[in-house]
């Protein structure tokens, strides 16, 4: 999925893009450091931090014991005292152990102190379903963190997203929750020459239109963007042109981009891996109801989500617990009444 002129494009996996972002930001600002389980000598549980410990050493790349609440709190304290920590959760499932530090110590502090105490921290790690890791290791936290004022919540899809958004997150003076996706780590993308530069930044809070279309708007984030594009390719053969929006950021949500698209296509479907109740899609639909795009809808806006159950283990069950391409195609046709 390349964007423009392909002559200077190279193929980069999401993992390598994240690695580049980390490397560049560590080099650029001495106050930046990375801590988490296995980030240093193991090269990262998912190899995202490969090579960094060798290059930057113990001071900047810190292996922690398996004590999330403790090390997340330590990271927040370090941010309060002037450093710029990147706190890795091996998966966001484990962030629940530390969620008090993310919300009560990081997110709310600038407000409670009326502007005296900023907290420039990034919490990053894989989020959402993986493959065969079952219920306790498969939850999507986009809605949980997206709920809280004081946080920015980012969910990249492509390699370009990963690099540009992670760099922006690290340079942001506020707490950013950066939701990666394990199944995307190994996926290669074309990266433009611009995206390869050390100063390549993507703005937090701005969605991207990955594919233009006139008949229906598909809004998605992270891995589900791939499925939307695949569904769009199939539907195009039947003459249905989908506009696929890659949210890139969960909070602040780029409602304007979605509204503009809906006012053009008159149909909206959100696609996410997380559970339906009180989720990302639920928020988008509520905003569309409350905003100028409502009057442009020719059919109710609907959500395609993960099934409302804990994630099962067996492959056939797992496959049927998250949206598949056929579910998106089915929902588009229902919405368009074709």
């Amino acid at each position, binding site marked *: 999925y390349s964007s423009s002129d392909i002559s200077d494009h190279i193929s980069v996996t999401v993992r390598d893009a994240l690695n580049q972002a980390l490397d560049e930001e560590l080099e650029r600002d001495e106050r930046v*450091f990375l801590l988490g389980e296995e980030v240093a000598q193991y090269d990262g549980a998912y190899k995202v931090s490969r090579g960094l410990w060798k290059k930057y050493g113990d*001071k900047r790349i*810190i292996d*922690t*014991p398996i*004590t999330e*609440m*403790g*090390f*997340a*709190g*330590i*990271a*927040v*304290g*370090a*941010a*309060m*005292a*002037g*450093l710029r*920590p990147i706190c890795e959760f091996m998966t966001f499932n484990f962030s629940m152990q530390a969620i*008090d*530090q993310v919300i*009560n*110590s990081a997110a709310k*502090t*600038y*407000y*409670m*102190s*009326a*502007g*005296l*105490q*900023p907290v*420039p921290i990034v919490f990053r790690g894989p989020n959402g379903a993986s493959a065969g890791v079952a219920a306790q290791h498969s939850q999507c936290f986009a809605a949980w963190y997206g709920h809280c*004022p*004081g946080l*920015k919540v980012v969910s990249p899809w492509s390699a370009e997203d990963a690099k540009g958004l992670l760099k922006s997150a690290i340079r942001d*003076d*506020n707490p950013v929750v950066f939701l990666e996706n394990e199944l995307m780590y190994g996926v290669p993308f074309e990266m433009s020459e611009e995206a390869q530069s050390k100063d390549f930044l993507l703005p937090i809070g701005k969605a991207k239109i990955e594919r233009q279309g006139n008949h229906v708007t598909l809004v998605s984030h992270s891995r589900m963007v791939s499925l939307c594009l695949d569904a769009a390719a199939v539907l195009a053969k039947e003459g249905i042109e989908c506009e696929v929006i890659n949210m890139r950021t969960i909070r*602040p949500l780029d409602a304007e981009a979605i509204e503009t698209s809906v006012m053009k296509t008159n149909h909206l479907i959100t696609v996410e891996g997380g559970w339906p109740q009180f989720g990302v899609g639920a928020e988008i639909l509520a905003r569309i109801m*409350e*905003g100028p795009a409502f009057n442009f809808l020719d059919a109710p806006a609907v959500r395609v989500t993960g099934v409302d159950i804990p994630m099962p283990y067996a492959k056939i069950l797992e496959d049927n617990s998250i949206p598949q391409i056929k579910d998106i195609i089915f929902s588009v046709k229902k919405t368009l009444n074709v």
Partner: protein
Amino acid sequence: DRVLLTGVINISVPVRSVCVCLCFHVTGARVVVSARTYADFTPQATFDIKKCDLHKLEEGPPLQAVLTREEGLQYYRTMQTIRRMELKADQLYKQKIIRGFCHLYDGQEACAVGIETGINLSDHLITAYRAHGYTLTRGGTVREIMAELTGRRGGIAKGKGGSMHMYTKHFYGGNGIVGAQVPLGAGVALACKYLGNNEICVCLYGDGAANQGQIFETYNMASLWKLPCIFICENNKYGMGTSVERAAASTDYYKRGDFIPGLRLDGMDVLCVREATKFAAEHCRSGKGPILMELQTYRYHGHSMSDPGVSYRTREEIQEVRSKSDPISMLKDRMLSNNMASVEELKEIDVEVRKEIEDAAQFATTDPEPPLDDLCNHIFYNDPPMEVRGTNPWTKLKSVS
């Protein structure tokens, strides 16, 4: 007020005599008993202080403390200011001018004052919600503390934080979630070590918080990474309404750091606290890693203003501490019996403090509340202005950094 004065005056003469005897025994300073001019005051005296209980330490802080007249007057003034400020807060709360949670520090003044005299303002400190005293010792003014309690725009957090969320330079609050401040404090210490600035972080928690898992996680990492962190447990014997015996399998809080060396000391004696803090600060600055101090102290008020504080302890117990161990009385006695100050001089300080508190209370009750425009500000730092949804879809509010 009246009760307090009675308590102060009520120190019995025999105690004073004993005190004088002890002091004369150890002091090498000149003592002039007859004339009462300022020139005749003892410039400094040496006092015996109680030995600390030690854990994994070969030696502890010194058994004597030198107090100069200037220091004594300063400690007295600051402790008295905290005492009066907290009592005024009690009054304002009962008048419903202060709302919500209000956790008062009266009785524990020697801890905040003693600790601050053992470190520098350039060092760092973080505590839990019983934080008004620390906000003062860390550079806040009584005015802005009281105005924060009353929720006014002149408050130290512009009225947006309240009692539990006050901040100053190198003072990270004021934290409402029990125990959460401990990893934060270790993180501040990590930053000190990382930046190589020779600063340390004092990280406080109570006897109730001392059983929190995240504190043990912090002990582990602080010790592994040799963070310059002084962990201090203010043991006031009760975690809300639960006595230490009912909450902790081991009430030797100074030993609970296990591999971290610890001291247990009298938290009602400002000199004890000072010497122990100096000792601990030196330990951290020399790169030895964290150290733990347990201060045995007492709060006269209940857990908060909603707690009368007498359902789980007796009035007799409270009165006994007031009459025998009050930190301000202890200092006052020492100074008077060593001719380091006069009764009149200390009374004059009391009058000045009272005036400062009255002025601050006046400000705190007349300053206007924050403007509604400020409602959505301070969500993000260094960000362009943004819109925040109001209570309904048509209300869009403005937020600036």
